[in-house]
């Protein structure tokens, strides 16, 4: 069985940044396994701009951002396999992948980095009524068809869900000559970035209907229209508010789900809120030597944050290998969110191994104005950050200093307070 120091599952932005960082930290024996026919992941179809403001201090399109990392990976001579689908990861880090040339191959890794990204919530998970007619796509599928394959998905569209991909596709379809009738959002606020609402909807006069959902998809062979209804505080449709929108296409932008089927085969413990692995401050999962980063760990808004997080995973995986693959020692400090903070990543900190600065990322469950993000260590206030605004669509970040944490700390709690 072939042996590697580090095997990275996924060649998107997380996998590429993790590979480069592991290499920079002294590990040469790396393998990236990518199931698509090219590296770069979802960035390849994100042809709009706005990527890399933090990483490169300029606004790049997705393919440009990807190409910069791919060029570095090629220049560093990091081995990778394309069209390679990983079918299984065992708890002792045997990775089974399949390619057309090699068939099914099992390799052994000292450390594994999970960088598989996320998937869109499909129609079947939304309970939308109607026939299985043509013309219903997830926004990301439509994006791939239009931007990579070169097909126009429709002429008149309604979009359900105001996630960023849905907003970006509203603009993309409009620029390609289609008409986008409306974007309907179940929640009373949008899950997308403000910039996207302004530049993708307001610029083209596309209405954003908050507290609305699709209550019927019309048409048998092809979509002929949708019925939108207003929803109440219980998010249930209000009878009598139905309105018919003729269209031939319905795009769904209703949330992203970390793709952790392989993590489960490896026995990695998942966080029910993020849908990703539970990790320590080194981004190590519950299985020693298996690390997780990027959208498979928790869904990010900005690729810059994915690259940063993945670089840490790469570094920590390298250190794990260099330190003789020893499991972390000492009990961890538990982290959790409450009163408005939905989750934290990491979910624990192991002080004995922690870096001087520990970045904790989180999402809030509602829109909060003029509140504070407060960190408590065993009930004692450790840090208070005033926030003009916090919203579910924008990830928050708090940096903790190792020296500020007492060695016997049991639990850190993050809260939104007035």
């Amino acid at each position, binding site marked *: 069985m072939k042996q590697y120091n580090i095997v990275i599952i996924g060649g998107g932005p997380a996998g590429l940044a993790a590979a480069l960082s592991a290499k920079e930290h002294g590990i040469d024996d790396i393998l990236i396994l990518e199931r698509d026919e090219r590296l770069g992941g979802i960035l390849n179809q994100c*042809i709009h701009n706005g990527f890399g403001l933090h990483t490169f201090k300029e606004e790049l399109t997705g393919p*440009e951002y990807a*190409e910069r990392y791919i060029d570095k990976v090629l220049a560093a001579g990091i081995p990778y396999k394309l069209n390679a689908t990983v079918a299984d990861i065992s708890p002792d880090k045997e990775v089974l992948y399949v390619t057309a040339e090699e068939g099914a191959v099992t390799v052994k890794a000292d450390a594994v980095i999970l960088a598989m990204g996320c998937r869109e919530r499909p129609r079947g998970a939304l309970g939308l009524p109607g026939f299985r007619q043509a013309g219903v796509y997830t926004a990301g599928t439509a994006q791939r068809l239009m931007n990579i394959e070169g097909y126009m998905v429709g002429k008149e569209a309604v979009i359900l869900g105001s996630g960023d991909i849905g907003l970006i596709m509203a603009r993309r379809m409009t620029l390609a*000559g289609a008409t986008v009738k409306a974007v309907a959002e179940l929640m009373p606020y949008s899950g997308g970035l403000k910039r996207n609402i302004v530049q993708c909807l307001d*610029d083209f006069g596309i209405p954003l209907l908050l507290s609305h959902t699709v209550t019927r998809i019309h048409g048998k062979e092809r979509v002929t229209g949708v019925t939108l209804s207003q929803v109440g505080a219980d998010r249930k449709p209000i009878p009598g508010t139905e309105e018919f929108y003729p269209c031939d296409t319905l795009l769904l932008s209703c949330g992203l789900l970390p793709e952790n089927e392989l993590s489960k085969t490896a026995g990695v413990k998942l966080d029910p809120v993020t849908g990703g692995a539970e990790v320590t401050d080194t981004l190590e999962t519950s299985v020693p030597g298996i690390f997780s980063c990027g959208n498979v760990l928790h869904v990010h808004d900005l690729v810059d944050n994915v690259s940063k997080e993945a670089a840490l995973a790469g570094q920590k995986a390298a250190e794990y290998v260099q330190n003789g693959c020893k499991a972390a020692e000492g009990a961890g400090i538990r982290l959790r969110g409450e009163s408005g903070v939905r989750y934290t990543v990491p979910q624990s900190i192991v002080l004995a191994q922690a870096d001087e600065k520990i970045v904790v990322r989180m999402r809030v469950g509602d829109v909060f104005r003029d509140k504070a993000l407060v960190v408590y260590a065993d009930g004692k206030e450790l840090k208070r950050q005033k926030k003009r605004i916090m919203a579910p669509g924008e990830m928050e970040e708090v940096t903790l200093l190792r020296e500020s944490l007492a060695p016997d700390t049991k639990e850190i709690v993050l809260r939104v307070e007035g």
Partner: protein
Amino acid sequence: MKHELTCIRCPIGCQLTVEVEGEAVTVTGNSCPRGAEYGKKEVTAPTRTVTGSVRVTGGELPLASVKTATDVPKEKVMDVMAEIRKCRVTAPVKIGDVVIADVAGTGADVVATRTIKAI
């Protein structure tokens, strides 16, 4: 003339009111100078980067993604797109290659944002 818009310079998203009276432009509702600057520019001379894709013949992929190398006036966005939609290129395409010079008379070039190998 009164304009209502959302500032996008940061996640706060202030609701701006921009009033234009002859030469004078006043912005209210902003909470920082960047907001005032944004409001003024959006109302007097808004610009956008336009991104899209062009057909490629003889390439590993049927499309090459493109963008305007510099921002173009907002009212020219649809004219720029019309030229991008008509454009055809032949592989190989290199990232940064100019595929349309001075698109729609804006002075901006449309450049490739990805590399497409010839096959």
